[in-house]
């Protein structure tokens, strides 16, 4: 069957989405599309309306930079599962929220509810033992339960039960109508990706209200997003060093993160970049003085960063811990539909900045790709992405467009009966925001997908066959969001 092809951060009328006549053809089309490595599932959700549910599949096609949309009007309550690992979690979400049963689903378990009798995978072998970690963890970490099946010190299986952070963000999005309330909700979906999330939110709102942002806003948003990437990647590098008890790396990277987030504070008043990005225009200008400050900050940062990173690359004591730990193969990453930094560390060419250009990114952007898929690969991806972000910010600052004097609407009205999709490459990976409007132009559905949604499965696979004492370092190398998954 045909699909509707739209570009990233644009909108289309709901009626344009082709609806499959029967489930079999919908299923077959989706399976065919997803079998190619250049396509992955960006979102799959159930859209409720007066007449029932429509299953909407959104597939990101990297070859022609389009998002392919197709739908199916669900009339029954039982359908065969798509049987594609990458869509397993989406099917679990639909089953949990709307009661549709997917027969033949490999893992029909709750996704965001945490019942006492959660059906954990169990081993009957007397040689194996189970270790349960969480939901309350030592240190300041979000809640989530990890159930390990181990043989001695070796992990055979890890199952992760999430849902403790479920706040109903998507539903709140519909019940709150003030623009600022919605914007704050969007950036709170995952607090460590505040800039990325609010860019995705702003894009769908702008697409639905038919507003074209000027180049200045686009460049500012790009800089903010890359600064967030630098800050979080640096913090992660510090934490990775901390987990292998390498104090020097821990201290140096920890110190380096501070000037970057302090710059965000100077720019928008929040170190984590909250309120930095809002629909239509930048609430806080990137003034001449701020630009000079940024260049100086990056200059000082880069010097120490390069020195520390070069040291780690040649330091056997640290490499011994990072190399060949927590490996995810390219095949596994592709099968589970991994996205973002974790996918690129496993050799997948998957970067929205290149494949579905938005803001100031263009197709000439070169993603950092590593092939080993281990903790060290993810560490190297972070190091090199920081460097590429710094040079990107420098080139954007060198050629900064002027601020245009277009008027910014105080309130906005959205196109009725439309759907807008925005993909943004946050520091962790692909964020997907989808907004659907009803006949009167009100939001009828808002879907958020954090990259963690795909990548938690990657963590489960990564730790198999590793020592249980290496779990923290594997976990840290992904640094996934609990609240981004639980919403």
């Amino acid at each position, binding site marked *: 069957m045909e699909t509707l092809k739209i570009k990233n951060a644009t909108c289309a009328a709901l009626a344009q989405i082709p609806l499959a006549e029967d489930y079999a053809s919908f299923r077959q089309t989706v399976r065919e599309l997803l079998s190619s490595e250049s396509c992955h599932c960006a979102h799959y959700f159930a859209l409720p309306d007066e007449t029932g549910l429509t299953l909407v599949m959104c597939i990101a096609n990297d070859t022609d930079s389009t998002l392919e949309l197709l739908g199916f009007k669900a009339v029954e309550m039982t359908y065969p599962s798509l049987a594609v690992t990458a869509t397993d979690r989406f099917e679990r979400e639909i089953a949990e929220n709307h009661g549709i049963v997917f027969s033949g689903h490999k893992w029909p378990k709750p996704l965001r509810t945490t019942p006492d009798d959660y059906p954990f995978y169990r081993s009957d072998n007397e040689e194996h033992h189970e270790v349960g970690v969480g939901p309350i963890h*030592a240190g300041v970490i979000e809640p989530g339960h990890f159930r390990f099946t181990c043989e001695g010190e070796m992990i055979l299986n890890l199952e992760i039960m999430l849902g403790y952070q479920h706040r109903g963000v998507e539903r709140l999005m519909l019940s709150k109508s003030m623009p600022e309330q919605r914007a704050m909700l969007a950036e709170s979906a995952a607090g460590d990706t505040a800039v990325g999330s609010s860019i995705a939110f702003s894009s769908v709102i702008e697409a639905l209200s038919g507003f074209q942002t000027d180049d200045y806003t686009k460049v500012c948003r790009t800089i903010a997003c890359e600064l967030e990437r630098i800050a979080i990647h640096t913090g992660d590098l510090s934490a990775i060093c901390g987990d292998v*008890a390498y*104090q020097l790396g*821990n201290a140096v990277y920890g110190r380096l993160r501070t000037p970057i987030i302090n710059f965000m504070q100077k720019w928008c008043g929040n170190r984590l970049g909250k309120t930095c990005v809002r629909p239509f225009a930048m609430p806080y200008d990137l003034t001449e003085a701020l630009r000079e400050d940024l260049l100086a900050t990056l200059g000082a940062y880069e010097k120490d960063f390069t020195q520390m990173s070069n040291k780690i690359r040649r330091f056997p004591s640290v490499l011994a811990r990072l190399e060949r730990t927590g490996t995810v193969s390219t095949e596994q990453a592709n099968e589970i539909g991994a996205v973002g930094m974790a996918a690129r560390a496993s050799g997948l060419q998957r970067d929205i900045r290149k494949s579905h250009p938005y803001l100031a990114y263009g197709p000439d952007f070169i993603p950092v790709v590593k092939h080993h898929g281990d903790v060290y690969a993810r560490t190297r991806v972070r190091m090199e992405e920081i460097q590429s972000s710094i040079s990107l910010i420098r080139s954007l600052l060198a050629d900064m467009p002027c601020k245009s004097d277009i008027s910014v609407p105080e309130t906005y009205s959205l196109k009725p009966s439309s759907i807008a999709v925005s993909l943004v490459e946050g520091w962790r990976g692909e964020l997907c925001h989808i907004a659907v409007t009803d006949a009167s132009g009100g939001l009828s559905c808002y879907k958020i997908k954090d990259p963690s949604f795909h990548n938690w499965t990657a963590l489960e696979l990564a730790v198999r066959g590793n020592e249980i004492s290496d779990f923290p370092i594997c976990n840290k190398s992904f640094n996934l969001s609990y609240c981004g998954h639980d919403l």
Partner: protein
Amino acid sequence: MLSFILIIAASLFFSGLVSRTKSICSGRKGPGIFQPLRDAARLFRKGTIYSRNTSFVFRVAPLVYAASVIIACACIPLGPFPALLHFEGDFIFFAYLLSVGKFFCIAAALDTASSFEGMGASRESLYSMLAEPAFFFIMGTLALLTGFHSFNDIFALTDAYSSLFSLGTAISLAALILVIALIESSRLPVDDPKTHLELTMIHEVMILDNSGFDLGLIFCTGYLKFAMYGALIANLFLCGPLWACVLIFFAAQILSAVAVGVTESFMARFRMNHNPEFIFSIAALAFIILISTLYII
């Protein structure tokens, strides 16, 4: 008696000195050298909470652990000045006294029936089992060199400065004892005392359920244990009149603490499955020293 007092005095600053060294190495201000003591004092003032699932083993374990280390400290002389407790073969008593303390710690950890603590207990018992031969090879070497079987006589006779050979032996034994101290006190590169990650812990995870006074006692015992190994190292080099002995004693303690701090600052921790190999190789080195001493004598 004198050595016992000196060990306690050294234990007051040993751990603080290690973390101070680490702070300086990483360019941080860091806490003062008496912070570990302040931490312990704070814990002593707090109430203790016991899990309903634990038995008396869990309650007595911290006391037995502390007592074992205190008595072990009493066995260590100050060079020519005798220890509080001394008899033929007291170094065997010393080693197994420490094992008794460890045994109770492990039993208490198992008593909590937590999957973490069982894991930590299994690691700790494996590593101390592997480290035990190293200690006996070292003491064997000293017994061979001096012809005595008591700490008192051995250290009264050890003279590191008589020849190049004895100085070399003393330095290599000191290095080995330092590594054993690192293993037994759960420091890098075998264990990481700073980690908050239960799954990677060895010693720390065994005391997760301890609180208040018991935890403070375990901490203080840890400081004392560190200083005790420092005293063993110092003993290899002690000579001369009392003032020289005291001076060398503190110099050796401070040097050991700084060496530990510097090691911890500039290297990462080993992967868990690498630890047994590492400890085995320490035992092997001690064995080589023993054999070469036999050969040369």
